[in-house]
């Protein structure tokens, strides 16, 4: 997932600023909050598993802790998109819309199947956040490719 996030940034930097070389440091700066959110999600899961005796509010705070870096990541991405030229903004916003609406359809379709008692063998417990995030990333890349093709 982190590899995909880096690849997304690499592709966009090269198309927005052709003269500018890909920079791993710039990549890390852009995606730092995403990495922090993923790390905190895993850490919070482990902490809660080892402290079932904690009160509800404390467990809720730990469980929701990845939301803060997640929010900061969204803010970083919004600033990054605002820094692009108008065509790239249109492409990125189109890709984001494609990814979010596509993911809503994926989740909806899965829930419709579950409601009918049809469980997918690989996902017996339903779609968790990793599956949803993977769907967003995959559909974002697909949407970017489709919309970019329109303007080539």
């Amino acid at each position, binding site marked *: 997932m982190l590899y995909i996030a880096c690849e997304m940034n690499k592709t966009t930097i090269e198309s927005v600023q052709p003269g500018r070389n890909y920079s791993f440091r710039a990549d890390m700066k852009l995606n730092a909050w995403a990495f922090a959110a993923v790390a905190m999600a895993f850490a919070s899961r482990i902490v809660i598993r080892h402290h079932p005796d904690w009160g509800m509010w404390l467990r809720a705070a730990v469980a929701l802790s990845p939301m803060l870096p997640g929010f900061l990541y969204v803010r970083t991405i919004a600033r990054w998109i605002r820094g692009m*030229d*108008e065509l790239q903004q*249109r492409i990125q916003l189109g890709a984001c819309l494609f990814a979010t609406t596509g993911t809503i359809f994926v989740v909806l379709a899965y829930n419709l199947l579950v409601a009918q008692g049809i469980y997918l063998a690989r996902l017996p417990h339903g779609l968790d956040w990793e599956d949803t995030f993977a769907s967003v990333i995959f559909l974002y890349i697909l949407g970017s490719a489709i919309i970019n093709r329109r303007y*080539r």
Partner: protein
Amino acid sequence: MKNKLRELRAGREWSQSDLAEKLGVSRQTVNAIETEKYDPSLPLAFKVARVFKLKIEDVFESNGN
């Protein structure tokens, strides 16, 4: 919207990258405008006209006209 961007750019012997740099946009944007796949915003259209020292209507033309 039709435009004369390619002719104007060729007349000045600028590459798409040169024009993109003057406009502060990507080369892909210049190419998309030239091939009429993308209509620029009004501020960008004015900027294009300014770069070529022309009026906006000398560069862009509505399809309806």
